[in-house]
């Protein structure tokens, strides 16, 4: 088990190292986030006060669209040169490979989110700094849910035609309960009315627990078959 966790960290480090070298996915993701933010500004012509009611919702829409670019690439990185075969043939257990890649995607997506948040606040004249730490907590929990399911689907669609089209169709519907919870908690936090968010938070945590265990258990079937 310890060997597995160590292997997971090696894989996470490898993914992060290659990504920071090229920054392809990071750049694309941040750019996409900015474009979506801009589009929202055109789409919604709300007054400052009314905007607070949808602040959490829009924030997570930005995150989930930009996040797709990061998460979808996860297993696709292993396809050139047949690296995936070498990883699976190694003594590393399949769940360790999966966990490592999830950790890497998690870190990358969190970075994109932290960059987008101030820009979001700026464009929409939103006061969010007062709620940063609780917001960061929600971001961490919900981003884990997005990445663990996204990386699992990335493994599923490695050999699928039209995988860029498939992933949103498969992934987004699954995320809806997670996003509903995250959006409501975020809106409440930004508005400063966070007295009773425990129930929504519980959904986010339940999502994380259920899908983390399910994905870790089923990943062997996906990778080795």
């Amino acid at each position: 088990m310890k060997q597995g966790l160590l292997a997971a960290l090696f894989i996470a480090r490898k993914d992060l190292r290659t990504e920071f070298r090229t920054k392809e996915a990071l750049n694309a993701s941040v750019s996409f986030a900015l474009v979506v933010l801009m589009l929202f500004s055109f789409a919604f012509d709300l007054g400052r006060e009314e905007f607070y009611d949808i602040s959490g919702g829009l924030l997570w829409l930005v995150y989930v669209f930009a996040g797709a670019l990061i998460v979808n690439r996860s297993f696709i990185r292993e396809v050139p040169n047949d690296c995936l075969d070498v990883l699976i043939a190694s003594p590393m257990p399949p769940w360790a490979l999966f966990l490592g890649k999830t950790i890497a995607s998690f870190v990358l997506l969190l970075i994109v989110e932290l960059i987008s948040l101030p820009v979001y606040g700026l464009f929409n004249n939103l006061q969010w700094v007062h709620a940063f730490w609780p917001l960061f907590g929600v971001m961490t929990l919900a981003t884990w849910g997005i990445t663990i399911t996204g990386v699992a689907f990335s493994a599923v669609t490695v050999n699928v035609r039209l995988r860029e089209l498939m992933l949103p169709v498969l992934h987004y519907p699954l995320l809806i309960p997670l996003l509903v919870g995250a959006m409501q908690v975020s809106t409440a936090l930004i508005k400063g009315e966070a007295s009773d968010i425990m129930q929504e938070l519980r959904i986010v945590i339940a999502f994380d627990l259920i899908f983390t265990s399910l994905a870790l258990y089923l990943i062997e079937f996906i990778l080795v078959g």
Partner: protein
Amino acid sequence: MSAIAADRVWKYFGDYPALRGATLEVPAGACVALLGRNGAGKTTLLRILANLSKPSKGEVTVFGESARDEKIRARIGYLGHGIGVYDDLSAFENLILFGQLMNVPDTKAAANAALERVGLTRVRDGFAREFSRGMRQRLAVARAFLHNPEILLLDEPFTSLDDRAIAVLHELLRDALAKGATIVMSTHQIREAMELATQVALLERGKIVHTGPRTPEMLADPGWLYRMYEEKPQ
């Protein structure tokens, strides 16, 4: 106890049997040239031996244990069609990573030694994507031999190598055999492969139809074994 024993292995892709009860026993220290036409199932069989695929029926044991055991996987080196190295990491970083994953004790030293054996020490910090094709192939070979595997599974390793890479691979294989490694190598009777081979096995439509020592006739005449089996009445 054989080093590798595949016992009546079947592999279905959908309802199509790519392997139909293939049985192969490889004694320790042997070098088996796995022959067969395209589509006979060579890659499928090798992938099952390397734990990349599970047999639909039948069993594979390596050193008497299930091939899927973690400790066994650490003793196997696999070189498939793809080179299996990361373009965005340097040659050295690639070998360090795979050394760590293959439980190599002193990864830095092992990586440096491997780079030297394949003649890539000068470019150890170069990114794999900048390498020429021959250099990439040598890096792939370095990766496969990095952890001094006792079992080597190679899928058409000599195909499309340049002469320098062929020489490097040939030498590494010879040295591995001298140290007692067991090798299963699929090949289209490339001369270098047949020279090293001590046994041959012929895979035809998912079944092993011939196993035996590699004879001088086979070395001299590449198509000899195929003709033997073609002339047999249906």
